């Protein structure tokens, strides 16, 4: 039996074991996100508020960085467009 086949069997056994865990309600309730154990309590509200905030944060950070880079790009391209116009004005001024 090849190593690949043995690895596939192990992965399948592990996957089935993990799926079997979902059938045990106590294991599902142990997680505050599942909403089983802590839902409706103050602790649950605290955990959920915190989780929503932390889920949103990577998007906020990446969005802020992308916004900053876009702002710099637009400002730089605006200055490049303005620069030749100023040059023409200064030539007219010399004349």
């Amino acid at each position, binding site marked *: 039996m090849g190593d690949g086949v043995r690895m596939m069997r192990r992965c399948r056994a592990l996957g089935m074991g993990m799926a079997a865990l979902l059938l045990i309600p106590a294991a599902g309730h142990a997680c505050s996100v599942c909403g089983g154990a802590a839902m409706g309590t*103050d*602790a*649950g*509200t*605290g*955990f959920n*508020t*915190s*989780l929503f*905030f*932390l889920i949103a*944060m*990577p998007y*906020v*950070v*990446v969005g*802020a*960085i992308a916004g*900053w*880079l876009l702002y710099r790009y637009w400002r730089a391209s605006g200055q490049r467009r303005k620069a030749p116009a100023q040059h023409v004005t200064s030539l007219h001024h010399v004349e």
Partner: protein
Amino acid sequence: MLIFLGAEAMFFAGLIGAFLVFRFGSATWPPPGQPYLPVGVTGVNTIILLFSAYTMGRALRAIRRGDRQGLVRGLLVTALLGTIFLGVQGYEWIRLVHFGFTLSSGTYGATFYTLIGVHGLHVFGAVLWLLVVLAGARAHRFSATRHAALTLCGMYWYFVVALWPLLFTLVYLS
């Protein structure tokens, strides 16, 4: 710098996340027997810190025009406003400690001193950075075309200033 600021933002997100667990996981906030935080004084302090972002912006605009005097003036006022912010925060902390509100006063004290203290340390670091670039500005090290160190310092200053209204709203007003 952007990656560093992103990492800093996630660091504060972790601390704020921990605060939210305790704040919204508690039926009464502040917990019984704990003092109310000085909202009025800290509100004025918030305005001082926000104004420092404006003076920092003026300093950066001055060096883009090649105005070194304006740069030095802007950096000096920004560093002064940052120092005033830290001084007022320190004074309020001393008053709270005298009241018996310390780091070990339950989750309320622990989250307050950790969150606000870490931000204060960041402002302190930013003020030191400002003083370093101020010395550089006085020594004519920056020009209209060469001022990358100033831009980075400005970005960091904007970060610590922008963070404060969020912390103030969460810790003092919520």
